[in-house]
């Protein structure tokens, strides 16, 4: 594996709709073979970003390069290297799972084996069922299957596991792990922070059209955000203390009731990041109003 140019490179990406600014100067790179998770609340600009990179939307300004090509000018050769799982499914699907995958496999020069893909998304039992007769979660698996059938260099996954039951989600994670070991570069958006933590190598957090943090999954939010919390009960009263030396504190406390040492999860860190951003912006807005 060569350390070549990044697969995705975005510089100062901006997108405006009239007076509304959906993206306000977003920059990041995704290296070859990396899984990058884009996190953020609804309407923060995740899908706008991913759709610009997929070639579905034009950017207002800034630079974007996907596999070395400007995504607003990407041709069929370029699309043959991409796998796209859009946020919404909806087509009526008067074909069976197998028919659909066999047909789409024909679009790509080095498509994966249809049986392998059906097995990878766990739809062996449903392969002869019309897609419109599948449940929402099963249809989503067809979307994922169509996203990977062409053996993409770069896979876009826009909230891929919405509607999955926990078992299906685990299966999906295994599938993505396999793709990662094969060297597929992945751009993932998700609302499930455990999913981002499990699959992502790095993550970016978008809020209000800005990238408010970016880094390795276990470095997001900075070291302070990861300070553990020791929680215990004393005389029926709940105590909580943030400390960088939880071992020392616990040793000092002895055997209190309900003793816990809590390491902030990615979800805690994410919520704090987004919460801090929201309160900052509302303060600026109030300031502006005054």
């Amino acid at each position, binding site marked *: 594996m060569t350390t070549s140019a990044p697969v995705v490179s975005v510089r100062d990406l901006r997108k405006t709709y009239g007076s509304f600014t959906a993206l306000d100067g977003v920059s990041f790179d995704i290296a070859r073979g990396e899984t990058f998770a884009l996190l953020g609340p609804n309407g923060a600009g995740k899908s706008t970003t991913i759709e610009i990179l997929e070639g579905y939307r034009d950017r207002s300004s800034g630079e974007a390069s996907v*596999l070395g090509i400007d995504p607003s000018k990407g041709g069929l050769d370029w699309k043959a290297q991409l796998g796209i799982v859009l946020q919404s499914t909806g087509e009526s699907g008067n074909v069976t799972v197998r028919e659909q995958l066999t047909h789409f496999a024909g679009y790509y020069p080095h498509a994966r084996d249809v049986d392998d893909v059906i097995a990878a998304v766990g739809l062996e039992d449903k392969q002869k069922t019309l897609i419109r007769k599948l449940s929402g979660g099963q249809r989503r698996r067809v979307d994922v299957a169509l996203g990977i059938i062409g053996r993409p260099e770069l896979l876009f996954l826009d909230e891929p596991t919405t509607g999955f039951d926990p078992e299906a989600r685990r299966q999906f994670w295994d599938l993505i792990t396999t793709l990662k070991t094969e060297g597929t570069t992945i751009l993932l958006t998700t609302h499930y922070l455990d999913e981002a933590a499990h699959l992502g190598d790095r993550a970016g957090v978008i809020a209000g059209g800005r990238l408010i943090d970016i880094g390795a999954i276990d470095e997001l939010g900075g070291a302070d955000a990861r300070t553990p919390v020791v929680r215990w009960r004393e005389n029926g009263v709940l105590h909580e203390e943030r400390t960088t030396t939880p071992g020392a504190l616990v040793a000092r406390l002895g055997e209190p009731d309900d003793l816990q040492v809590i390491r902030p999860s990615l979800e805690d860190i994410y919520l704090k990041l987004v919460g801090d951003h929201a309160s900052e912006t509302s303060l600026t807005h109030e300031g502006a109003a005054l």
Partner: protein
Amino acid sequence: MTTTTIPHLPAGRTLRLGVSRIGYEVKTYFRQGDSVFFTFLFPLVMLTIFSVAFSEQNFGPDDAPLSAAAFYLPGMLAAGLLLSGLQNMAIDIAGEKGDGTLKRFAGTPLPVLSYFIGKIGQVFVTGVLQAVALLLVARFVFQVSLPTSFEAWLTFGWVFVLGVTTAAILGIALSGLPRSGKSATAVIIPIVLVLQFISGVYLNFAQLPSWLQNIASVFPLKWMAQGMRAVFLPEGYESIEVGGVWNLEGVALVTAIWLVVGLIVTRITFRWIRKDS
């Protein structure tokens, strides 16, 4: 910064994928119950109703009687072209726009031309099956005598091919008109229905007021129906036509003009998706 080199796709895949799309389209068409009824079976149902309802009436002059089935067959063949082509395509593609099918294609290396080959191929296959069904029902259920001359069938061949292609292209062009897949039937069916009434499909064209005939003459269905009458009505019936002739040159000319108009509109307006909509 080094640029990643992207391998080129092999040549000749546009046609190969187009053929693959025809198979896919025909298969899904016949699995869609409502489109099979309203575009495929509809002319057959209408031919049957008219033939049975007016079975006692003579549609020709007293010395050369013409059964209802024989009278309505050319009109129903022309209506079939319009339904299988225009109505089917316009509603089908508007639906695919609405339900995200086209958005999915936009993200794959499927050439737009392959998609169109698939659509037109589907119209052609279903149109041929429909015409054969109409002819068989007319011949064997309602005892309509079909032409035997090679020349008549040659005329049928070119009127059919030109008509079905034009109708399909116009359908693709019109698919941009409905604002959503759900409103497509409501927008397209009235257009198709009015055209059928003024173009000599349900009503005897010769008996329409001349101003209505003039309006209908702008649109291709009147000419397609006239071409079909030239094939299937007995000799001498051209005397009832406007100008007293079949005017096959007019049929070819007006239909071809609409084909070109449809191609231009399609070229200008068709997109997998509207960016930023």
